């Protein structure tokens, strides 16, 4: 088959397909195992808010890398060089807003979905407008990922998309439907490792063909070594556009309104741990991911430059010719692994991992919105937890099927995958991103303004697709390109328009009562914390108590633990403070853990902690296993 620019012999195709299918089966079984950790709806979607920071962070690696990422960023890396990493390394500017604003607001207000926040902060109408926009964003990603893997499969194995896409969706649907968020997190952790391994293999194979890192760097043209592109020259990839469209709008969308990511943060045991996750994600995993997904493109450029200078192929591999840059990853990888079908099969499995790990997050997130924003408030508000757990599984299955149907829409498109992706995202996100921002950081912003700005902002942003010249003055104002395409500048236009409407309408209407915004804006966070804890917070940081033995005491209330007086001092806790209890084995990442309230028991020894049988079971603790205690606040 040569539609992806490589000729793979039939016997190699069989081996590659075998590795890929085996991978899918193993992942489905692995994900399905975690169904046992879902006894409530909160477990299914939020894993009981129990994990250590590193577990969801590691799993976010795989979520952030889609099946399109390897293909798209290798293409970009080949065309413009290391500047392809910019979209992964420009998120820091929004971090203060996130870690001190949006994250604690969402965490402490205990909202289950972004639309639910909109209802609490504004009104029902705002909730459903935001829900439509957020679902459009997430289904876009599901459909787009399924479509790209279909394209890759068709190209490599000749399997038509109408067979490959439903098959992949079926396996995915099974483990997300039964395993829920816990399955998503653990499979994504595994798949993140796979992605880094496979990307690493592809890069090391390329470097070894080139003769090492030094050779790679010296054969890479200066323009391709730079981490930035020209400010305005390239209509589709320029620094000015990337700053406004990607670093601001795109990053805010991915961090603030992406229900999948927000749900990951809500699985973490405390806001402090969430902040660790955000820092590690932006400072370590995103730059690493930029190398993993774009590295093959950079190597491709160095290989072709060296090949041209030497006048023929490099020793040990065939001549590399890239006529369609979208095929860069597949062509270079197949050549540099020297046509080894087992290694190449592993790399293809990584593409599968990238697809599955992105879509599973979105399916779970769509299902959460389906349950918390549609089914529970509108259809069946007073059902049992067991009923909602069943409904959540149905919602996951339905979300998978809808995503599958969306592939048909992408199928008819003639544009490149990259322009399809950014065009879609930059149209959907501006209005909602701006409304979230105004809602969280400006108490005066009211519901009339929120609804008006979301509707008008979205509609006018869609108009700019047909009348792009509307964006030209704004682009010129910020020193951006004036090129008629405005892929990224469209997002800035949408944000400025939505923001302007929001501000004007707010200033000419009455703000919501202070009672309504309490705990839902940055300046009322303390109220949110008091409500979350159920009392005045104590921020003094205590010691972690490790390896305590559990004594069962059924006189204690559910979700309550007792410790000795000395341990109360070491924890720097007062009676009623929120404590996190977990199995002492750190590598479980909090899989067996629970949030409880602490009380003092002077009769207890310093090596013990007591709790009721119900609390013990709710924390999934195991008999004979010591536990660790930590004060939250």
């Amino acid at each position: 088959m040569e539609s992806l620019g490589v000729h793979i012999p039939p016997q190699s195709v069989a081996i590659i397909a075998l590795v890929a299918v085996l991978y899918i089966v193993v992942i489905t079984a692995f994900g399905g195992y975690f169904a046992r950790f879902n006894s409530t709806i909160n477990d299914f979607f939020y894993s009981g808010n129990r994990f250590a920071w590193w577990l969801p962070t590691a799993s976010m690696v795989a979520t952030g890398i889609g099946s399109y990422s390897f293909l798209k960023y290798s293409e970009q890396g080949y065309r413009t060089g290391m500047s392809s990493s910019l979209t992964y390394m420009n998120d820091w500017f929004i971090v203060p807003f996130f870690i001190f604003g949006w994250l604690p607001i969402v965490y402490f207000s205990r909202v289950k979905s972004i639309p639910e926040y909109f209802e609490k902060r504004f009104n029902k109408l705002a909730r459903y407008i935001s829900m439509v926009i957020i679902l459009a964003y997430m289904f876009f990603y599901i459909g787009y990922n399924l479509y790209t893997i279909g394209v890759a499969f068709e190209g490599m194995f000749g399997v038509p998309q109408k067979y490959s896409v439903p098959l992949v969706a079926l396996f995915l649907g099974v483990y997300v439907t039964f395993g829920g968020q816990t399955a998503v997190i653990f499979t994504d952790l595994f798949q993140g490792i796979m992605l880094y391994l496979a990307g690493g293999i592809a890069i090391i194979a390329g470097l070894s063909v080139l003769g090492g890192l030094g050779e790679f760097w010296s054969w890479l043209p200066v323009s391709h070594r730079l981490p930035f592109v020209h400010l305005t020259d390239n209509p589709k990839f320029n620094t000015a556009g990337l700053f406004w469209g990607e670093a601001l709008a795109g990053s805010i969308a991915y961090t603030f309104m992406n229900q999948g990511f927000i749900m990951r943060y809500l699985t973490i045991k405390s806001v402090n741990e969430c902040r660790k996750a955000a820092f590690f994600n932006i400072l370590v995993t995103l730059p690493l991911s930029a190398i993993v997904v774009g590295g093959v493109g950079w190597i491709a450029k160095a290989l072709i430059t060296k090949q041209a200078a030497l006048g023929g192929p490099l020793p040990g591999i065939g001549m590399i010719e890239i006529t369609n840059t979208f095929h860069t990853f597949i062509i270079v990888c197949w050549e540099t692994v020297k046509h080894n079908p087992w290694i190449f099969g592993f790399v293809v499995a990584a593409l599968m991992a990238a697809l599955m790990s992105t879509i599973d997050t979105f399916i779970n997130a769509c299902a959460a919105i389906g349950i918390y924003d549609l089914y529970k408030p509108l259809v069946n508000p007073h059902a049992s937890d067991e009923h909602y757990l069943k409904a959540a599984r149905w919602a996951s299955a339905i979300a998978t099927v809808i995503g599958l149907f969306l592939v048909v829409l992408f199928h008819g498109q003639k544009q490149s995958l990259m322009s399809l992706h950014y065009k879609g995202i930059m149209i959907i996100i501006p209005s909602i991103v701006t409304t979230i921002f105004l809602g969280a950081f400006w108490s005066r912003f009211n519901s009339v303004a929120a609804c008006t700005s979301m509707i008008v902002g979205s509609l006018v942003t869609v108009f700019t697709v047909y009348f792009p010249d509307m964006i030209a003055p704004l682009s010129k104002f910020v020193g951006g390109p004036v090129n008629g395409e405005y892929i990224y500048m469209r997002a800035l236009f949408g944000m400025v328009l939505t923001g302007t409407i929001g501000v004007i309408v707010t200033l000419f209407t009455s703000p919501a009562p202070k009672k309504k915004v309490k705990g839902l804006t940055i300046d009322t966070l303390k109220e949110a914390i008091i409500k979350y804890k159920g009392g005045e917070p104590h921020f003094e940081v205590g010691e972690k108590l490790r390896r305590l033995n559990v004594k069962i005491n059924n006189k204690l209330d559910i979700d309550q633990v007792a410790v000795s007086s000395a341990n109360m001092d070491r924890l720097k806790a007062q009676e009623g403070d929120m404590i996190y209890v977990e199995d002492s084995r750190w590598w479980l990442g909090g899989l067996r853990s629970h949030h409880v309230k602490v009380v003092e028991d002077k009769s207890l020894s310093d090596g013990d902690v007591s709790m009721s049988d119900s609390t013990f079971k709710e924390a999934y603790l195991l008999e004979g296993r010591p536990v660790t205690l930590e004060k939250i606040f």
Partner: protein
Amino acid sequence: MNQVRHQKPIPLKALLIILFLLLFIYFYPRFLLHFFEPHSPWVSYLYLYGFGFVFFIFGVILALKTGACVPGRGRDSFWLKGLFLGFIFLASLHAFWIYLALTSPFKGGS
């Protein structure tokens, strides 16, 4: 909608900040292009980190002013320091990267 009348006037300070920001957004890229050669990678670097810093510092000030971050409370000081160190780390990394790209020899000719 259960809303009450709000009599607060539009704060002059907010209007001045918006005006200052608009002037900065307009003049900053033109200033860069005036002082640097348009194809210099430093133009893109300063554009990103210049505008980025304004946005970043606005977020920090907002967190401090609203009491979302109170230095000395819990681990707030740690995270505040981390924010600035993270910014410096990324800005230094990109600056060093550009320097290395421009100064290392290229084997493929001019």
